[in-house]
């Protein structure tokens, strides 16, 4: 789920920013650009933990624009779904094909085929929720569920994962305030 890694990023700084506080400006720019970004291989950058000063090396001037490119190494806290990992997620929306849940910025879709057998036909369009045959389990918007990640894809700068609640000890954990 969360892990720390050191990454590299190129910051393009305009000449107006050059001054005595250049390094702190670079750190600020780095945070603005990178935090919240979804990197294909690594996941979402949740936070920039540390930017060691010695890692901000001298920049290279671009001839045509006059901007300077700094190559910065930093340590970041990343959020990434790992296959077969078990996560707790919050259900955001239920629809006729399954439901969407979120772990922070990470979107996970659980299809009805990945639900237990007794919930396969449990779609209730009036209440927008998935209900088991014995009416015990009601999954609707705002509920907490425990799910296992089965796959992931990165498209258009967002990471979408596929989950399942069909296995043991998975499924509804928390009714939620609106449940």
């Amino acid at each position, binding site marked *: 789920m969360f892990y720390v890694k050191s990454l590299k990023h190129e910051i393009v700084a305009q000449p107006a920013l050059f001054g005595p506080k250049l390094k702190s400006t670079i750190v600020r720019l780095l945070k603005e650009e990178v935090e919240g970004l979804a990197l294909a291989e690594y996941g979402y950058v949740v936070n920039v933990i540390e930017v060691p000063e010695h890692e901000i090396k001298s920049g290279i001037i671009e001839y045509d624009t006059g901007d300077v490119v700094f190559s910065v190494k930093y340590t970041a806290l990343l959020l990434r779904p790992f296959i077969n990992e078990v996560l707790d997620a919050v259900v955001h929306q239920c629809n*006729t094909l399954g439901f969407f849940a979120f772990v922070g910025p990470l979107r996970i879709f659980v299809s009805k085929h990945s639900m237990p057998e007794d919930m396969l036909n449990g779609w209730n369009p*009036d209440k927008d929720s998935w209900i088991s045959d014995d009416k015990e389990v009601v999954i609707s*918007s705002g509920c907490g569920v425990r799910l296992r990640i089965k*796959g992931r894809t990165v*498209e258009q700068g967002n990471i979408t994962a596929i989950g399942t609640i069909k296995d043991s000890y998975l499924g509804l954990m928390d009714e939620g305030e609106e449940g």
Partner: protein
Amino acid sequence: MQVTMKAVPSSISVVTKPSPLSPQTTTSSIKPKDLIPITAPATGFLRMIQQQPNTPNRRRVIGYIEECLHPTILEGMCVVCGERPTTTTTTIPNKYNSNTDSLKQQSRSIGHKANVNTGPNLTQVTVSGGITMTVSQQEGQCMAQWDANRLYRQQRLSLVLDLDHTLNNNTNNKTSAAGVRTIRLPLHEGTTDPLQLQQPSNHLHHQQQQWAQHYVKLRPHVNDLLRWIESTYEVSVYTAGTKHYAEEATMVLCRNLVGSNRDWDDIERLRYQVQVQLQMAYHHYQQQQQQIMINDTSRNNKTNTMDNTDDIGNNNVAAKNKRTNDQIQQQQLQQKEDDKEKEEEIMDMNDDDDDDNDDTKHKPVKKKPKKISFAPVSTVEQEHTNHHPDEENNNPITTTRTTTTSSYHHTKSDHNNMITKDDDEEEELERLQQELVQADELEQAARRLRQKLFGSRVYSRTDLGDLGQHVKSHKRIFPWLCFADINNAAGTDLSESKQGNNNTNNNKNPYNEQDQQLLWTRDILDRLHQQYYYHYSNQQCKTTTGGNGSTGNRNRRRTVPEILKQMRKTVLPNCTLVFSGLVPLHKQQSITAAASPNTTVRPPIVRYAQSLGAKTQDKVDETVTHNVAAKDGSEKATIARTIPGCLVVRPGWLMESYWSIRKANVQPYLMAQGPAAIPIKKDENDDDDDDDDDGFALELEDELLNG
């Protein structure tokens, strides 16, 4: 115990048990050629068998692979196994593909026709929230079947309604027409990326949103339609407008249904008025308190025979008290304003959340409006103010005060004036607060009704994502169902208004109060529902009594398009129509040959007439019953006047008949009428004969007498 493994097509190297015949038994001497790879024939889930059955065959079955059928694909990935199927296509074709025979048979049994596929056995579907996924044909049909069964059990049909010019008309120009509602729409729709919209924490842009007012007028009889429809139809809304607009417009509809005349802006204005009134009341209360304190201090001065310096001192003290009181009052007012701003922010942020969120978050604050009552006292024995303890940030001020009788006389006149003023204010405040409570309750009722009536079945252009090509096609939302159009007319309107009034616009007047379309629609839907579920009760009876009807028809339900077609055919059964001035010359050849389906495209008006069961021809003769003419005085109209029983009518009659699926009353559209057709009856014939005979006898007599 079942173990699920993802089987991968690539080979896996496994160390096999060395066979007893092989001389090489040590693990170090296993060569790569002894390793037999296990390859999966398909992608799916591997289920291992624990207990192997005793089979004489050396090839024992150790497990099974449940192949994944990839029922749904999200962003190129199967939602069940996570693989990327190689046969996905994500393009939408420009024309509809033809259906296979097997599909037709299957769909007939469930009462629907299957339709558009976007690729080999794949269909794109947009679900609520604007996410587009691809489903396989099998999955689509399963879902259609499930939906159809569910509706059938509830004895309901599915209805998709458009918003603009169907249920309402709207504009962003302020208009003074009666009964206009207002809605608030953002100036910039913001991101249309469904993932961004879905993010629960991504509401920052709402705070910087700018809002514009739009004005909505509901079509006449919309209440009748919606109120009745709920029990017999599952309603969805599909509009080419944006998501915000769709939500606001459905809220306006529901507010109208519960009888609320206040839109969101009106309620906010009322809330603001209550706040202002409260502040004024509090201000007056503060003033009163200060006045009383000043009077107290001055009284104390008199009773204690203080000198002027002390008076001044006390006045200074009183002034200082007044200043501090002013400061306190200002602080409290400021706090109230801050809270109001915060509430507005919360409300703005919550605008796009679920409506329930909106209510639960600010409802506890607004549910119990503040109640300040200045008890009108005849003796200034007690004054107290009541506050609800869970109110915003008012200090519960409860003071009781007693005054001496001397002060009573001294301050009575002043106080009485203040009391009457307070009474008026108090009444006004109470009235406003009651109004606000009622308005909030109605708003709640409207939200609940909206959830009940539409659910989450409100789809808009924003949900589809692509804002151009296929906006008007509802197949993206309901790809496996075929909807029969009841009234999906677009383009030129061939009807004229009944009175032929002059319209200021070129188009028909959008605020036409005589508009009956929704009543006609309701009538059609009613008849359709009755006919569709007529068989439902019939089947129940037949199964119990053993049934002697034709078995071929017993299990086959008529589809909605079939029923509608049948209904239309019975509207003008014995009518023969001739058109005058409506069909251009170069298209007239197609009229007579239009009976066979393989001819050229019929002109629309001919098509309407023939779908209503009427016969059309281009010559006026004695069989013609109606001459549908653009204007009077044409050749055909002149001839038609001479034909007994023939009516010359305007095209509006035909269009009203078409759109209401009922033979319309001819009177409003009548231009001319032929001589009344003489009905052939025996009595009349006898009379005629007698008259004739009498007449002949008289003539004969005359001749004979007169020679």
